[in-house]
């Protein structure tokens, strides 16, 4: 009797498994894990969720029988909170793909979990280049920018134009350290010299002490290895202490359009920095940004992080469409994504490398003078472009185990 029952059960299980394989599973869940309330919420936050929503609507997958769900959560820039949410998302909510995941500390923590659980992460928000170097993962694609690229583009340009002595003002966590390290390497390689640094706690409001130290160093360039509210406050207070008037130059190593908007052109004019997306690059970016801005509560234009969420999902959905279903094996999906060249309206044509690095051009911008700006959000002048294959860390220097040498 016992044998009979177990045989029956075994048979049922086989049938179920077989029917599961035959009928394609066409459900997928997108999770936008970002800073919804803190200092980075303008450059990611609700805008990233909106970008994901637009990518889902534009994908046309619903018409092909796909069911796509979207959820979003606030990781509060805390790696422990982020991993708790991520664990719950994977185990309970069955999230297949993590988008945005800004903040390098958070990204590195979630990166490990996503690998362990075989999900997918397209990171569009974090800066640390470790995501595709020593910490690279077969489940992660780093989409928009990284510290190596920023250092390479902005750092090199500034040393070339005569800024050969540097002092770093660095946010004291994974991202700031990575950005300082990568930029210092570029500066030294290009013949410049780093003469000092000071590390400030994340989310400081007063930078005058640090700025005085930078001023006393007499370095030609004060490199700001920080982001978001920290950068805007540094720039604002630097003008108060006459840093630029005294002949030193500020280098914004990571600036977003939302930062420039917040500073106003009067304070921000003349700053040089690198981004990989600007809303006013071409007709495609303008069309998307107009649609995006109309749906934003404060009518903001998309930052490169938010644009990256859209662009990353466009490629992800194309891959799912080609696969026809069963999107739950993270490594397999990412392999398929790496195999196909990318092409979307925001970042143009590109490729994804074996180490998970997405390649596209990097643009060196200068902030316009108030008189040059024709209207709200008209902030940047393009002054240089580095092609995608030269902008990022070459594979020959990579410490990523996924790269076959």
């Amino acid at each position, binding site marked *: 009797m016992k044998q009979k029952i177990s045989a029956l059960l075994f048979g049922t299980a086989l049938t179920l498994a077989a029917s599961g394989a035959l009928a394609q599973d066409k459900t997928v869940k997108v999770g936008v894990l970002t800073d919804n309330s803190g200092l*980075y919420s303008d450059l990611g936050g609700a805008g990233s969720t909106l970008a994901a929503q637009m990518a889902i609507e534009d994908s046309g997958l619903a018409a092909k029988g796909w069911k796509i769900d979207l959820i979003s959560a606030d990781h509060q820039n805390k790696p422990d909170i982020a991993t708790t949410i991520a664990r719950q998302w994977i185990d309970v909510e069955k999230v297949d793909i993590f988008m945005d995941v800004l903040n390098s500390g958070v990204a590195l923590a979630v990166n490990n979990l996503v690998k362990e659980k075989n999900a997918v992460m397209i990171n569009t928000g974090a800066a640390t280049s470790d995501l595709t170097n020593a910490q690279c993962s077969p489940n992660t694609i780093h989409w928009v920018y990284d510290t190596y690229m920023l250092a390479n583009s902005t750092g090199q340009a500034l040393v070339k134009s005569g800024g050969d002595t540097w002092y770093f003002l660095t946010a004291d966590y994974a991202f700031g350290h990575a950005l300082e390290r990568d930029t210092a390497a570029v500066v030294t390689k290009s013949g410049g010299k780093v003469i000092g640094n000071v590390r400030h706690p994340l989310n400081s409001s007063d930078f005058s002490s640090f700025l005085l130290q930078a001023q006393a160093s007499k370095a030609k360039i004060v490199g700001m290895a920080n982001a978001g*509210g920290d950068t805007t406050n540094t720039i604002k207070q630097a003008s108060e202490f006459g840093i630029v008037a005294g002949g030193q130059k500020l280098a914004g190593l990571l600036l977003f359009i939302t930062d420039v908007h*917040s500073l106003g052109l009067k304070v921000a004019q003349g700053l040089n920095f690198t981004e990989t997306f600007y809303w006013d690059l071409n007709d495609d970016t303008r069309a998307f940004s107009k649609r995006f801005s109309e749906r934003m*509560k404060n009518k903001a234009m998309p930052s490169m992080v938010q644009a990256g969420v859209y662009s990353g999902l466009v490629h992800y959905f194309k891959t799912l469409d080609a696969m026809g279903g069963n999107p739950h094996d993270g490594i397999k999906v990412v392999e398929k994504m790496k195999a196909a060249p990318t092409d979307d309206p925001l970042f143009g044509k590109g490729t994804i490398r074996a180490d998970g690095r997405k390649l596209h051009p990097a643009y060196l911008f200068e902030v316009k003078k108030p008189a040059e700006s024709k209207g709200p959000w008209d902030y940047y002048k393009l002054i240089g472009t580095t092609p995608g294959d030269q902008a990022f860390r070459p594979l020959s220097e990579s410490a990523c185990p996924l790269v076959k040498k």
Partner: protein
Amino acid sequence: MQALYAQLLVGLINGSFYALLSLGLAVIFGMLNIINFAHGALYMMGAFCAYFLLNLAGIGYWPALIIAPIVVGIFGMILERTMLQWLSGLDHLYGLLLTFGIALIVQGVFQNYFGSSGLPYAIPDELKGGMNLGFMFLPIYRGWVVVFSLIVCLATWYLIEKTRLGANLRAATENPTLVRAFGINVPRMITLTYGLGVGLAALAGVLSAPINQVRPLMGADLIIVVFAVVVIGGMGSIMGSIITGFSLGVIEGLTKYFYPEASNTVVFVLMVLVLLVKPTGLTGRAA
């Protein structure tokens, strides 16, 4: 050595914000027995008020220094009349939770409409530029902040400790029934006191608007430090909070020079030490 002088001065500047904010807290705690967690949010409202005055009505910095504290002060008095007054006589915890809730709501509403990066507010033309002091470049605006907040702090101290009005107020907190018997309207006085404390927070907000971005979370970042200042100085002690405010600014400034990574925590380390040695704070009297 030169760098050290500069750090001392910068510390004094930050100290003046701590002093102004902790003074407001001390006034409110000393007179109303409320731990006002909404103080940071009200400070932020002061800065936003200055921003709105400039951008919507074209009213500049100087009038804003007077108008913003009054507007936010009135908002505070409405809070006191409609909510806080019902908590008098209850445990401190209730006031703390209520004001904390108010702070979260106010910040949430502002963040919903203005995002997190903040809005620009320029330094008034009269105070632009700076002086070379030999050992550092002092922005004139920062100098003005130190002088002005020192004057406001001392004036508040004088008002509460040395005038007849202040005496009535202090008497009312000791024994409200008796003071009422002398024909003094105690509830109205308490409302006005809360308004004064809130007005001080808003004034600090206007002062800081040209230095920091006007951001919904600007108060949340500051309020915890300010509470530590109040605790170190002694809850409810007016002079204690003024002196601690300035001196903690200086200590923090020195930490930023000698060991910058610890600059966010040094105030709390001091708070723990003070509480261990003298639980009532440096100038506090035993309850």
